[in-house]
């Protein structure tokens, strides 16, 4: 007897503006010229890190910009809270969200995820003899995977910053961190011993959004592609 009545609005997200998630910090500054070349002009406030606003309209009524922590860009896009985003490939490697497509390498935000250890010890450890090693990192998954491929269990000390202090103070033997110029490492008597992955920023897209709103999403992918050419 299940006669069906109450009408429900099918979707709220279908007709709303496309949301582009941008990462705070260094990459945000590099995004500016790229956005301009793509013909996207958010409200100027968006680049002001002191602004308390987090969501900004653009000169396109069907595109809004949000500004979140770089690790959170991937999460917003994976859950469909933002349809597209700009995100470092380090974050994508770390989270490995299956719901994220990464169609474009934007070539900005270049750096690398590397292993570093104290200057004094560098090159003196025979890693093939180790079963376990303690590593301070904000990349637990990347770190565990990297060491697992050489038969070593990485015991992660999860830190969100000031990684470089960890070896000197006995918190860990190694660190795995993002390295751009290497000056922070040098200042803390650490030396980069191994590059795990080169990092650049990617344009990322929510999988369901691309499948269900292909026209609306592809417009923006194409604009970024043209901006790179």
């Amino acid at each position, binding site marked *: 007897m299940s006669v069906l009545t109450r009408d429900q609005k099918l979707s709220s997200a279908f007709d709303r503006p496309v949301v582009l998630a941008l990462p705070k910090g260094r990459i945000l500054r590099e995004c500016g010229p790229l956005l301009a070349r793509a013909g996207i002009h958010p409200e100027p406030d968006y680049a002001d890190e002191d602004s308390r606003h987090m969501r900004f309209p653009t000169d396109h009524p069907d595109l809004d910009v949000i500004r979140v922590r770089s690790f959170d860009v991937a999460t917003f896009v994976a859950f*469909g809270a933002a349809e597209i985003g700009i995100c470092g490939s380090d974050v994508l490697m770390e989270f490995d969200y299956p719901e994220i497509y990464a169609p474009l390498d934007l070539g900005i935000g270049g750096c690398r995820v590397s292993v570093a250890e104290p200057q004094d010890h560098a090159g003196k450890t025979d890693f093939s003899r180790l079963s376990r090693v303690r590593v301070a990192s904000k990349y637990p998954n990347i770190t565990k995977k990297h060491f697992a491929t050489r038969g070593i269990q990485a015991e992660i000390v999860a830190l969100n910053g000031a990684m470089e202090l960890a070896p000197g103070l006995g918190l860990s033997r190694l660190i795995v961190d993002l390295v751009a110029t290497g000056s922070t490492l040098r200042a803390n008597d650490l030396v980069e011993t191994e590059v795990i992955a080169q990092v650049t920023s990617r344009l990322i897209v929510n999988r369901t959004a691309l*499948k269900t709103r292909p026209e609306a999403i592809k417009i923006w992918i194409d604009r970024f592609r043209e901006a790179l050419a």
Partner: protein
Amino acid sequence: MTDLDIHPALLPAGFEDVLPPAADIEARTIEALMDGFARHGYQRVKPPLLEFEETLLSGSGAAMAEQTFRLMDPESQLMMGLRADTTPQIARIAATRLAAAARPLRLSYAGQCLLVRGTQLAPERQMAQAGIELIGFDGPEADAEAILVAASALASVGIERISVDLTLPPLVPSLLEHAALSAPAAARLAIALDRKDAAGIAAEAGPLAALLLALLAAAGPADAGLDLLAATAMPAESRLLIDRLAATVHAIRARTPGLILTIDPIEFRGYRYHTGVSASLYAPGRQGELGRGGRYVSNEGEPATGMTLYPDIIQRIARRPILRRRLYLPAGSDPAWGERFRAEGYATIAGLAPVANAAAEARRLDCEAYVAGGSITPIGDQ
């Protein structure tokens, strides 16, 4: 977790108690979907929750091995598996107990499945499935029928606007196999393809890059994508698959012109045992698939296709079924009154002891009215 008592309400990760009225809504939604299947001649079967690991994980079931809970049968001393997907069970039934039934065989099923692991986006480890299998016919008409019957069942619960993403799970693996890439390069390429990472595909695919990038560009609205694929050079084996995809699109258009169709020829994620045209169903603007399915090889090599709908997702956007309205029947009421109102579609909540104020008692028990002198009396606002 040593001296910590487990709270009596705590359940293992990914499991939940479904309460009133959600449990009623879920059951009615599933029945409405099953009725949608039945209208197209799909007959219901009910496989058991548990069966021997050896039969559950054979054939198309092998792909579900890592998601299957196991336990030992003390009776036979054999390992049993709790189903993580129903399709392999239907394939077994079709090849054994229904081996002599006329083909094409149209079967439907509804039931719960258990998964070893949820994901961050879908942490549930118990999920309902309601689905159909069309066994013993290999052709675009069958591929189209499975998708359209699923779409029609969704329409019957009020989800009229869906989009269908058509995929060819065997296409990319067959291309990779023939490309003779080294194993690590093939693995990196598979990841790049999975992430639709054009730069990664260009870097890893070598001689395949041009074709794979064309396949990537074809993802999107079906007609434009098929035009692009028609103009793309590819090996004969791939062309056969693409032609079948085009024929399926044609068959769907001929029957239901209005359906939103997209294609994604390089998609292969999550299609575990599929060997031909497959599909995922979406409600535009909603995260999560409403269902998925596609062509596979059933037990004994029989051609088959099917679609599985996910009622847990569907009921969130389906039209809400009408539930029985609750009516308080004070103790001592004439039994005939209750009989009459139940026949009219009410749920009667019988008073077990006399109360001074029937209206207040009705409100306390979440009823919208009570019976006095044989007629329905609203409790009013208070």
